[in-house]
Every structure is written in structure tokens, then in C-alpha cells.
């Protein structure tokens, strides 16, 4: 069964066309095309306006992040993770930090863990808002974009409040957080969480029952559960086919097992189901963020980073009067820490699916090898399968519904 599933290469399509042996037309969509959401080239084989075959051509944004990490100490490599999936930098930070923490067996304080959950769930909402806005824009529904970016800006303001940067946050460090949460963090988040459910209703008013939206999305870009697993789709793309696989429930990390939330699933695995699943996910994320907010509120001030001085630097106040703290600080920033030898893998549920990080340590302060399982990269393989026999306009909707981020595809 799975043998029939095939991922075409650009050469497979351009080859016969160059030789003049095919009756179909070959067309390049991209690398610079607004509907490919970045620098993605799709080689289309068309019969009239019908898609016969599609081959994604990736690599235009390859920056060698995995190689660069090998020459940085563990703490300094965090900033590179921001630049992979630039719509969800906090999820990338979390995945990397969790992997190194697992390798070293570091326990992080509850305040830091709860803040991580709260912020990654807000990150999921903000990432889904970009997806929603651009997806609707691709299908010529312009106003949704304006609504979605209004709330996204509010979430980015929160990220700026805690980390100083809207997008390249680097806020989750190994052992906890980079800085403590500011005093006006909780009221600002509270204000957002209070309005958010009504705002999601607003987006749904615009699209969920809109006849034009239904016509473009229902029954388009269908994939069944079996093929979705075979092609490695994860996240909302997988759950839209009816499989309730979510790493937050299946293999919980960061204490997700203690939060109360549901996993939204679809039935048909078409674009509309992916839309419904992501919209429901946003509501669940707001609910998780609210639970985390309650916990942070009850916890009060406390440590935001591990007290293990071999992993995280001591606070400035300690350095000024403790010789030992000064030595720790000096050792950490000149040499770094040395995790034990071995390899470790952690997979987390990023907004785009399972983001995995595999690290091999040789016992030195720099990682021997870092590999990221990028969900966007892997889900692009299913484009050909899902678009065969459909129109080019449906392909535009399909690519948007898979929600790839090209920074993550190419790394």
C-alpha cells in the first residue's frame, strides 16, 4: 500500500518536458511567489489548468544552522533556534532547551516551567493567527488578515515585554528563563486572555459559514489518515484526518499532563478540517494559557532559573560578594558547561507539528551534532499527493493550509 505513495523531484517533471516527450505544460510557481509563503519553488506539471504533478524545490533559505551550532557552546546556540521557524521562535527555544536539559538531567523551577507553557501557548495562537491571515489572503479574503494581525501584534507585545524582542526572543534558556517575568506581565496577559475568545469568534464569523470559503476549502486537498502518517504529517495537518495524536498528551513535557485541555480532530482531512482544527486549537491554547496564568498568579515571585550554578549563571547580586559565584560566572561564559557523553532526542508539539531535536554530545562544551526534525520540511512531501487532479487555485489553498515556514524547511 505505502509503496504507491511517491514524492516527486523537480527533475522528474522538468526532464520529460525538456526532452519534449510530454504533452503537459511545466510551470514554475515561485521561488518568489506570494502564495508560497516564503522562498519555495513549486514545479507544476499542468494539463490545462489541472495539476498533474507537483514537485517542491526547497533549499533557497538554507543557512546551515545545524552546522553553525556545532561551533557554538550550548548556551550560545539558543539564538540560532529563533531563526528556524520565525513564526514560533519560543517553541524552537523550548525544544532546544528541553533537549539539553534532558541530556544533563536539569530540573527547572516551577515558575519557569509554567511561564514556558503560558508563552508557548500564546506563541501557538500568534502563529495560527499568521496562518489564518495569510491563508485567507491567498483565497482573496483580505479583511481576515487585518483582524488576525491586530491580535498577533498584542501577543508580540507580550513577547517584547518579557524578552525585549518581538520575534527573535531567545527567552527560554537552558535551566529556565533568560530573565524574570516583569511586574506587568500578568495583568497584560490577563487583558489579552479576556478578549481572545471573543476575537476568535470574530474570525469564525468571517469564515466558518462563509459560502465562498466553504466552496474553496471543503473537499479540497484531501488526505486520509493512512497516507498522512506515511508522509509524516504532524500537528493540525495530521489531526484533521481524525487521528488524535498530540505530543502534549502522548508524551507530555513541561508538565502538560497537569493541564486540562482537549485535542481537536477533524474527519475528512481536507483544507476546511485543517482550518477547523487550528481554530479549535487556538481556543484550547487560550484555555491552557489561562490555567498557566492562574498558577503563576498563585505561585508569586520565585526563582526563574535553576539554582544549579554549573548550568545557569548566578545572579549579579551574588557575583559582587561571592568568589565562588564569580568563578562560576567566568567558567560559564568563557568555557561553557560540559554535558555527559551521549545522544538524546526530544519531540515537542510546535504550532506546525512535531518539532524534534536530536543532540549528540562528546562531553565537550559544544554539541557534536544537532539535528532538527522540521515539521514544515516533512509535510511539504505530501503536496503532490494532495493536489493531483485539482486546479492550480486549489494548490494555492493547499500550500497555505499545510502552513509551512520556509525558514524551518531549509534551516
Amino acid at each position: 500500500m505505502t509503496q504507491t505513495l511517491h514524492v516527486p523531484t523537480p527533475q522528474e517533471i522538468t526532464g520529460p518536458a525538456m526532452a519534449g516527450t510530454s504533452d503537459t505544460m511545466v510551470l514554475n510557481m515561485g521561488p518568489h511567489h506570494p502564495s508560497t509563503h516564503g522562498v519555495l519553488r513549486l514545479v507544476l506539471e499542468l494539463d490545462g489548468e489541472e495539476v498533474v504533478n507537483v514537485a517542491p524545490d526547497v533549499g533557497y533559505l538554507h543557512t546551515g544552522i545545524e552546522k553553525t551550532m556545532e561551533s557554538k557552546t550550548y548556551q550560545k546556540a539558543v539564538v540560532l533556534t529563533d531563526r528556524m521557524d520565525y513564526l514560533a521562535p519560543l517553541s524552537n527555544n523550548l525544544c532546544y532547551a528541553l533537549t539539553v536539559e534532558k541530556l544533563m538531567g536539569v530540573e527547572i523551577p516551577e515558575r519557569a516551567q509554567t511561564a514556558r507553557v503560558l508563552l508557548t501557548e500564546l506563541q501557538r495562537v500568534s502563529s495560527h493567527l499568521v496562518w489564518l491571515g495569510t491563508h485567507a489572503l491567498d483565497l482573496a479574503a483580505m479583511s481576515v488578515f487585518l483582524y488576525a494581525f491586530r491580535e498577533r501584534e498584542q501577543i508580540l507585545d507580550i513577547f517584547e515585554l518579557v524578552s525585549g524582542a518581538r520575534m527573535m526572543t531567545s527567552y527560554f534558556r537552558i535551566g529556565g528563563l533568560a530573565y524574570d517575568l516583569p511586574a506587568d506581565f500578568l495583568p497584560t496577559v490577563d487583558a489579552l486572555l479576556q478578549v481572545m475568545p471573543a476575537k476568535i469568534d470574530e474570525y469564525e464569523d468571517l469564515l466558518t459559514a462563509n459560502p465562498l470559503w466553504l466552496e474553496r476549502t471543503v473537499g479540497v486537498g484531501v488526505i486520509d489518515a493512512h497516507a498522512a502518517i506515511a508522509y509524516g504529517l504532524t500537528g493540525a495537518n495530521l489531526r484533521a484526518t481524525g487521528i488524535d495524536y498530540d505530543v502534549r498528551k502522548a508524551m507530555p513535557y513541561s508538565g502538560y499532563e497537569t493541564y486540562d485541555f482537549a485535542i481537536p480532530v477533524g474527519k475528512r482531512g481536507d483544507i476546511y478540517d485543517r482550518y477547523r482544527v487550528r481554530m479549535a486549537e487556538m481556543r484550547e491554547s487560550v484555555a491552557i494559557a489561562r490555567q498557566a496564568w492562574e498558577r503563576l498568579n498563585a505561585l508569586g515571585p520565585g526563582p526563574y532559573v535553576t539554582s544549579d550554578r554549573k548550568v545557569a549563571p548566578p545572579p549579579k547580586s551574588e557575583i559582587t560578594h561571592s568568589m565562588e559565584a564569580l568563578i562560576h560566572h567566568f567558567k560559564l561564559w568563557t568555557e561553557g558547561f560540559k554535558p555527559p557523553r551521549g545522544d538524546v532526542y526530544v519531540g515537542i508539539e510546535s504550532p506546525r507539528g512535531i518539532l524534534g531535536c536530536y543532540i549528540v554530545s562528546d562531553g565537550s562544551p559544544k554539541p557534536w551534532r544537532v539535528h532538527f526534525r522540521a515539521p514544515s520540511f516533512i509535510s511539504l512531501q505530501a503536496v503532490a499527493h494532495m493536489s493531483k487532479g485539482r486546479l492550480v487555485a486549489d494548490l494555492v489553498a493547499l500550500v497555505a493550509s499545510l502552513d509551512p515556514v520556509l525558514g524551518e524547511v531549509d534551516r
Partner: protein
Amino acid sequence: MNNDTVLAFIHEHFPQGVLTADERHGDLSVTLTGAAYFAAAELLRDTPELAYTFLENLCGVDYLGRDPRFEVVTHLVSIKHLHRICLKVGAPEANPQVPSLTPLFPTANYQERETFDLLGINFAGHPSLTRILLPDDWVGYPLRKDHPLGDEEVAFSFNQERIYAQKPFAKE
């Protein structure tokens, strides 16, 4: 289903195929011989009590100075039983080649191409093993530890001819 039962299952079916196994950090990882790798992945996928139907991750590592030099690391997940297993297979320096899992798991296609592209490990049985992230005319495999890390000399008009003459550009 836990690490012990899965490991016992693999030991039972591939007594010669298991080189090492460990459970560091609570994750089961099994190093297999090249001969057992494909068959083990197939059996793990098709046995209903295990049902490792989802290939989550596949990548390569260059252990320069070790024999075998390369290693391909595959993470399989059983969505039914919520369990993850890591399969490893070595590849020698002279002719790094391991069997391709793409016929079993179509999702391995891009991941094996990426490993080939960056590390130069060949996957026997892959339908289209070509470069994916780097340009087709790229020379070398950047993730190898002996790949030279040098500065790229910036081309100005006074030195452009000399620099371009050394570069492996696609020559029409």
C-alpha cells in the same frame, strides 16, 4: 508495551542483528547491523502489537575517528501504543551506504535526501537520491567533520575573476 518488551522482541527476531542497546534517559535505542536494519524496521511497523507506523525522525551523524565513521539514526513512533524507539545503523567511511527506509515509510524520502546532501551517506533503494538543500553542483558534504570551515572571500570587481575561476559554478 515498554522498553523491555520491545527490546526482547527485537532480540528474539534478530539475534545476530543487534549490536548494542541502551536505555539512556529512559529512551530505548538499538544499534543494528546493516543487514538487519531494513527487516527490523519492517517488522516493527507490521507487527500489530507494536505498530511503529510513523517514522518521526531520520538523520545522520559523523563520528570522525570512529569505526564505522557514520551513523544513521531513525526514530520510529507507535501512535497506537505511544512509544518511541531509536534505531541506529553504522556506515563505513570508505563507502557509506545503508538501506533506504523510503519504501516502508514515504516520509523518509526527504530526510534521507537531506542526510545524503549534507553528510554524503548513500541510501540503497531510495527512488531519487539527489541533493535537496544545497545546489546540485555543490562540492563536498558540509556536515562532515572534515569539511573545511573557511571564510568565503568576498568578490569585488578587482578580484572577481580570480574568485569566480575557482568556484564550481554551473558552466553552461
